[in-house]
């Protein structure tokens, strides 16, 4: 497809020298002046087009050539190909200011606005005066649409009315007959047989109502083309592009009440009395209603079926906007929308059309006092589970949630309960949807399901694997062809998926709703079954987004969590550390997030240590935890040293401190045993220093422990100087261990100073500590630095 020849052509185009280019331009200029347009001219122009668009920097073309190209562009007798090429070349080349009235950058915005309105007046004059010559109108309508999108205030009221009237004509009163037939009709057909045939609907039935984009004919008249163009642009031309319009309908109740009266009178028969903008609204509404009816027909061609779906989506969306502008339409719209929903519900091929319908319900069901629960139940409970693998639907669904997150949180009961279903979209397409989910996740956090959500996020890669298996299983059931497989061992996982023994595990992970339990007991088994899939691309990508989601989760929850939830979260951190799906760097990354948030949690609520002392003690006592999760373990030890104190929690007894001390002391002894046959340490020096410091901190709070810790610390020198350690750690690290041990021993000789340095109370950063001469930091510092000076014999009595 993309060959070396193409690459070299680009290179040539970029590297053409300036003089050569000018010569080439000169040649083209001469060619354009000859009467006939030869293939050579077109060829040259095509090459010039490539040259000017191939570089990032604009090429300067001689102004006489540019003027000539503009002439070509403006002349309607020139073949279209020359116009296309001229337009493209002028757009891409420099200088750009020659051809446009509006591109002088020195114009201030007010001047520009006037200049632009001149251009627009011309456009609307063209529209007005060239009505019969529809060819021009067909091409100016998109321009008008673009201008209104870019500069909504650019049209005057008169121009708006004029445009609205024209649009109504095209939309509602286009011809009902086919255009003049292009085909000759065959040898035997005379003029009589060439009568314009009637238009048909997409299913072949003769059209009985006004013309729309879903009407089919051999050829179309100009106004039928304009009908199609108008509908395609009605959102911008009729209502202006504005996302705010999609938001809630009438807030003002009194407005709604008065509009109940006007509802009766706003029928189509009296619409002639409406001002142009309102009349356009009315006609657009009728058009949408007709399209919705027409979409019920069974189209003969597949492309028409797809168009019907697009028409449904557009029509519902337009009706939504209209109802937002004028709430009296809500009563007319709802029966139509409800019937449509009834028709489409359950048809998987129309799932994407359910989203604008749901948006409509969200915006207007309160106005119309219609119950919308069933719609959202269907939407959140079934749609994601059945179609998580449709990329477009997934994207649109998530965008819908994002756009309406606050409303959904407040008014739709099962939105937050449906997070297991919604996360299926993310599990399947992690890289494509992670940005959206980072924004969406906070809206899914509810007090009673927050912990379950945490577990679900941690098991997101399992979900990805399970969904993959589910898809393969379903493909096998329906066809004989297995899905394209990327790892051979998937077959083993697939077997497990089919076994009744593991049914419960998969049912849990693939559940549609929260509330059945935070997690399952046999999670480890699930991880083992899915072990073979841990390298599949989808699972690996999913694992990469989990740490990001965890950060968002913790940042959101810790702001609002109460004491009970913080306790639960701490337990999850301790428990899930060893219970993660084994994917390459997944464990390490998740651990990092856990460590950060462990610190944050304890800092926010120090009594947690005492609340969960049993679990923390159990965790800290086992050296096995060091080897598998060193980083997290180090943080746990640090947190113990920092917050296990009576100043943070009055329930912190001497016994508690002692039991922690003894456990940590035992761990330190075990890992620093010096034996001839000992293997080099597999943990980092930081762990040793943190353990030493924590033990020292605990000792200052229960001073009977000081002799024990001093003994312990005195052994560190031997440890650090032993052969395996010297071989493993760097010189600076061993020095650090020795120095730290030495400092701590010396510090502990002065228990009060040690207490101050190692475990300041919570008020340690208040100004008192710096200004009060009896208890200030500088004095403490002086004492300590005197102590630590190696050659000092300074020892106060």
């Amino acid at each position, binding site marked *: 497809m993309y060959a070396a020849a193409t*690459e070299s052509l680009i290179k040539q185009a970029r590297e053409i020298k300036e003089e050569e280019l000018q010569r080439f331009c000169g040649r083209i200029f001469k060619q354009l002046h000859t009467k006939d347009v030869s293939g050579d001219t077109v060829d040259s*122009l095509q090459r010039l087009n490539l040259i000017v668009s191939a570089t990032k920097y604009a090429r300067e073309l001689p102004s006489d050539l540019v003027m000539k190209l503009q002439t070509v562009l403006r002349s309607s007798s020139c073949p279209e190909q020359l116009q296309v090429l001229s337009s493209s070349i002028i757009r891409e080349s420099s200088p750009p200011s020659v051809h446009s009235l509006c591109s002088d950058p020195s114009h201030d915005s007010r001047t520009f606005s006037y200049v632009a309105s001149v251009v627009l007046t011309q456009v609307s004059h063209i529209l007005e005066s060239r009505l019969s010559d529809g060819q021009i109108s067909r091409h100016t309508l998109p321009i008008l649409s673009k201008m209104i999108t870019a500069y909504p205030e650019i049209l005057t009221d008169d121009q708006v009315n004029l445009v609205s009237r024209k649009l109504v004509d095209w939309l509602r009163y286009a011809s009902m007959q086919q255009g003049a037939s292009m085909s000759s009709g065959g040898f035997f057909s005379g003029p009589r047989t060439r009568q314009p045939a009637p238009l048909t609907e997409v299913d072949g039935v003769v059209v009985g109502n006004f013309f729309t984009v879903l009407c089919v004919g051999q050829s*179309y008249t100009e106004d039928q083309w304009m009908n199609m163009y108008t509908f395609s*642009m009605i959102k911008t031309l009729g209502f202006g592009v504005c*996302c705010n319009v999609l938001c809630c309908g009438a807030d003002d109740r009194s407005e709604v009440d008065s509009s109940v009266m006007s509802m009766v009178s706003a029928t189509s028969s009296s619409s002639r009395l409406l001002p142009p903008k309102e009349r356009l609204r009315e006609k657009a509404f009728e058009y949408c209603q007709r399209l919705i009816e027409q979409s019920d027909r069974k189209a003969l061609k597949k492309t028409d079926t797809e*168009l019907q779906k697009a028409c449904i989506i557009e029509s519902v*969306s337009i009706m939504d906007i209209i109802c937002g502008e004028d709430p009296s339409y809500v009563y007319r719209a709802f029966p139509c929308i409800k019937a449509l929903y009834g028709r489409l519900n359950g048809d998987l091929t129309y799932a994407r059309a359910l989203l604008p319908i749901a948006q409509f319900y969200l915006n207007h069901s309160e106005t119309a006092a219609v119950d919308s629960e069933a719609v959202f139940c269907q939407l959140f409970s079934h749609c994601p589970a059945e179609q998580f693998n449709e990329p477009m639907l997934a994207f649109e669904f998530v965008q819908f949630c994002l756009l309406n997150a606050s409303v959904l949180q407040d008014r739709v009961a099962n939105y937050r309960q449906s997070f297991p279903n919604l996360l299926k979209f993310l599990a399947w397409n992690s*890289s494509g949807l992670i940005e959206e989910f980072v924004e969406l996740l906070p809206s899914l956090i509810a007090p009673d399901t927050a912990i379950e959500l945490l577990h679900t996020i941690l098991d997101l890669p399992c979900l990805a694997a399970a969904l993959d298996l589910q898809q393969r299983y379903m493909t096998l059931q329906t066809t004989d062809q297995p899905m394209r497989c990327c790892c051979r061992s998937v077959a083993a996982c697939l077997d497990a998926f089919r076994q009744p023994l593991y049914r419960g595990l998969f049912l849990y992970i693939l559940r549609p709703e929260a509330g059945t339990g935070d997690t399952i007991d046999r999670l480890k088994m699930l991880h083992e079954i899915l072990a073979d899939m841990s390298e599949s691309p989808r699972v690996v990508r999913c694992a990469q987004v989990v740490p990001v989601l965890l950060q968002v989760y913790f940042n959101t929850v810790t702001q609002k969590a109460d004491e009970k939830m913080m306790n639960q979260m701490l337990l999850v951190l301790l428990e899930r550390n060893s219970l993660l799906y084994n994917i390459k760097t997944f464990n390490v990354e998740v651990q990092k997030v856990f460590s950060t948030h462990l610190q944050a949690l304890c800092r926010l609520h120090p009594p947690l240590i005492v609340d969960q002392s049993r679990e923390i003690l159990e965790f800290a006592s086992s050296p096995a935890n060091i080897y598998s999760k060193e980083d997290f373990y180090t943080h746990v030890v640090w947190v113990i040293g920092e917050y296990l104190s009576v100043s943070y929690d009055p329930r912190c007894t001497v016994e508690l401190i002692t039991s922690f001390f003894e456990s940590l002391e035992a761990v330190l002894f075990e890992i620093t045993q010096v034996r001839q046959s000992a293997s080099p340490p597999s943990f980092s020096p930081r762990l040793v220093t943190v353990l030493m410091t924590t033990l020292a901190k605990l000792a200052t709070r229960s001073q009977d422990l000081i002799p024990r810790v001093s003994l312990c610390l005195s052994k560190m020198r031997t440890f650090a100087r032993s052969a395996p350690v010297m071989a493993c750690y760097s010189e600076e690290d061993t020095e650090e261990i020795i120095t730290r041990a030495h400092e701590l021993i010396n510090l502990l000789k002065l228990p009060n100073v040690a207490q101050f340095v190692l475990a300041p109370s919570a008020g340690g950063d208040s100004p008192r500590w710096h200004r009060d001469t009896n208890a200030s930091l500088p004095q403490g510092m002086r004492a300590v630095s005197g102590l630590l000076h190696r050659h000092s014999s300074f020892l106060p009595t």
Partner: protein
Amino acid sequence: MVVCFLIHTVCPVSALSAGETRVLYARVFGPETGDACDFTPEQRRLMQKERLHVVARQVRSAVALSREASGGSSVEAVLGEEAAALGEADSGVFSLGNAELFPDRSVVLWLGVQSLAFTLVCRPHENLLLAEGTLRNIARHCLEELRLLGPGAEVLLKSDRVDALLHRLLPHGQLLFLNHRFTLALDKEIASYVSK
């Protein structure tokens, strides 16, 4: 409304580093809003080219991820097998979070056909189903009129054909609701343009 249309490579290109892409065709439907007034036209053109490259690179990585996740590679189609190539094509969508690229979180719709991708950047809240259909239609025409399944360089030299077909199928970036008869009429116009 569509902001721009691109044709670019998604295969490794020898002259470029891995992950880079060569933009073979780019059409931006102006006017662009949101640009600061104190850039020269030169600078604005450069910025626009850079933006398009960023989008193309993001599509390249999205295509690679999608193909990796779905596993396996399909058979390469050759000239004459355009319909098969389109049938096998992968497609996807993502939003451009960075507001400096294109305003208001524009949406990128892509269609990957073998070593090339066709990309549409749309404004948010656009009718994506219609955009998808339009993109497929444009891609079909491009594959046929530019003989993209062959080794030639028509995509560079005959890019006026793309301009002409965009002029009809996506006038000034406007998506059209075309039933099969409207499509047929426009196909005829395009065919007559190409044959000249």
